[in-house]
């Protein structure tokens, strides 16, 4: 029991860490402390953490442009992540990749991606490799609702199903691809049906409920691990923030946002934990403070880190 509760608190803490990290990042970009652009995942924390909680350490994860949450959930060091936002030498990519292009191969976080749909075949290729090596690891591929319209989605899902690859396609449907509502980009908005057309299981679940996310993934991960092949899981969720820096959110109403905020994953998780006596309000406050401190430290670390030396510009183009 204690173990289970500790794990729950851990996961809740990670969700809070993601939230705090993202809100801080948002502010840093909005106020111009950091240049460039960024996509934050505020509101979608249950998917990232539910997934990491369901998966094993040796499984690999690929991500997209909105990947900070996936990375933190996989164990990413937020100091090096934050430093990467700042374009600093201590960043995960030494300032080369920026917000969208960070990875930690040792952790099995195989990287964010700047190309929508770009990581889909990559994840399947990793799964192919696991299969060739007869390993029981799986690959988890985070994608957004917009990416299901890329050719790679179609091509890869077919091959993944055909060859029964151990890969899960985890689709965060936050109702919009940038400014485009799902119904404006898809003739059929029931994505799970697409999976069927490739002969793989497809299911759609509440992505704001940590437990639903975790249990659903755990189930399909087990199947994939034991050679039953891939699955497609849609998580209904919502991003609270704009698409990226500078988005005025003209394509949706404030009312809609508020409705979703009330259904937010953190509120729900907290409610559960308190109702089930896993934590108290005071614990919650303490966790939030500790999380904030960590993020502030990461900012401090990043500010102190130097910019990458111009002399290194040409280093690392080739292995």
């Amino acid at each position, binding site marked *: 029991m204690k173990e289970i509760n500790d794990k729950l608190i851990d996961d809740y803490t990670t969700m809070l860490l993601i939230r705090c990290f993202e809100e801080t990042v948002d502010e840093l970009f909005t106020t111009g402390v950091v*240049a*460039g*652009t960024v996509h934050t995942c505020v509101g979608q924390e249950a998917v990232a953490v539910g997934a990491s909680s369901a998966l094993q350490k040796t499984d690999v994860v690929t991500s997209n442009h909105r990947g900070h949450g996936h990375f933190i959930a996989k164990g990413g060091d937020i100091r090096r992540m934050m430093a*990467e936002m700042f*374009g*600093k030498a201590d*960043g995960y*990519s*030494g*300032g*080369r*990749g*920026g*917000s*969208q*292009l960070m990875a930690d191969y040792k952790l099995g976080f195989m990287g964010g*991606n*700047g*190309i*929508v*749909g770009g990581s889909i075949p990559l994840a399947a290729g990793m799964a192919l490799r696991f299969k060739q090596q007869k390993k029981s690891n799986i690959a988890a591929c985070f994608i957004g609702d*917009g*990416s299901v*319209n*890329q*050719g790679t989605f179609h091509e890869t899902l077919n091959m993944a199903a055909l060859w029964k690859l151990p890969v899960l396609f985890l689709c965060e449907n936050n109702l919009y*691809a*940038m*400014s*485009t509502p799902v119904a*404006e*980009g*898809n003739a059929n908005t029931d994505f799970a049906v697409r999976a069927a057309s490739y002969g793989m299981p497809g299911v759609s679940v509440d992505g704001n409920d940590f437990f639903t996310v975790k249990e659903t993934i755990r189930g399909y991960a087990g199947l994939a691990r034991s050679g039953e092949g891939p699955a497609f899981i849609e998580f209904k969720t919502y991003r609270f923030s704009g698409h990226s820096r500078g*988005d005025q959110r*003209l*394509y949706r109403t404030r009312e809609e946002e508020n409705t979703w905020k009330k259904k937010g994953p953190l509120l729900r998780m907290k409610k559960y934990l308190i109702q089930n006596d896993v934590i108290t309000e005071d614990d919650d406050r303490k966790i939030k403070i500790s999380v904030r401190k960590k993020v502030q430290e990461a900012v401090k670390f990043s500010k102190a880190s130097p*910019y*990458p*030396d*111009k002399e*290194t*510009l*040409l280093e690392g*183009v080739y292995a």
Partner: protein
Amino acid sequence: MTMVSYSEAIRQAMTDCMKQDPDVFLMGEDIGVYGGAFGVSRGMLAQFGPERVINTPLSEGSFVGMAIGAALTGGRPIVEIMFMDFITLAVDQLVNQAAKLHYVYGKQARCPLVIRAVGGAGRNYGPTHSQNLEAWFCHTPGLKVVAPSSVEDAYTMMQEAIYDDNPVIFLEHKLLYPIKEDCILKPGKTKLAGSKRLQKGGDITIVSYSYMTYEARAAVQILQKQGISVDLIDLRTLHPLDETIILESVKNTGKVLIVAEEPRSCGISAEISSRIFEQVYDYIDAPVHRLTLPDVPISASPSLEKAAMPDRAAIVRAVHELCSK
């Protein structure tokens, strides 16, 4: 006269053409309510409706292909590629369909298509949101590639591109969008013209395009104060390339600096350099100098991005070096 920005000029050209010609229409991601990632088509959905401002799903390969299909049947689509980096997904349709069909179907097919490709670094967007890939399309027979560097050209050349009967890659640069000029934009059906001399000078020729021309203009001012007189040529049409004006200039100055924001190897700068080499070799006083991006991905970090991009200071330095030869 009014102050107009580069992005407003493009919007104005598209709007003027759409008002005049029902065959002209827009396609692209988030070009509707959002007005495009850089706001270039802002307001156009309200003005022209969803049949002519077509907000597409994330399917670059196919919406470019659909635009080609529409063009083959008499439409004049203008497609926005949000970041030129994503044109990679539409290369097949552009190279194996749009570029070739006129020639391979024995001149029956016409493909009047404009691809608005948003290129360029300088805004810390990182390796996959900062590239200039125009050289690929200059290496593709059947495509035209143009790149306006001024507000006025942005307007005129967009009109010209729309009324050209060939597929045109229209290169826009992020850093040019906010730049304003005092100018009057006049609708009219002129033809895509070639390079243009922006400033007459006798000491050295500078050839550049897109945002690099903007930097070159600034460098020319600095150099002028230092007593160096530059013949500045803005390429504008990158392909097919008419080198006449460049060769003339080089015959006169004997020295050339080519400035291009693109990976160095097999780029536009190499093509220009080779043509000079081949055709006016005897007039050359010093080897042609190419100022380009190094062969390296563009970093998100400001320090590395800046280190990679040519700018006015680098241009001034290069000119000094060449002139001391």
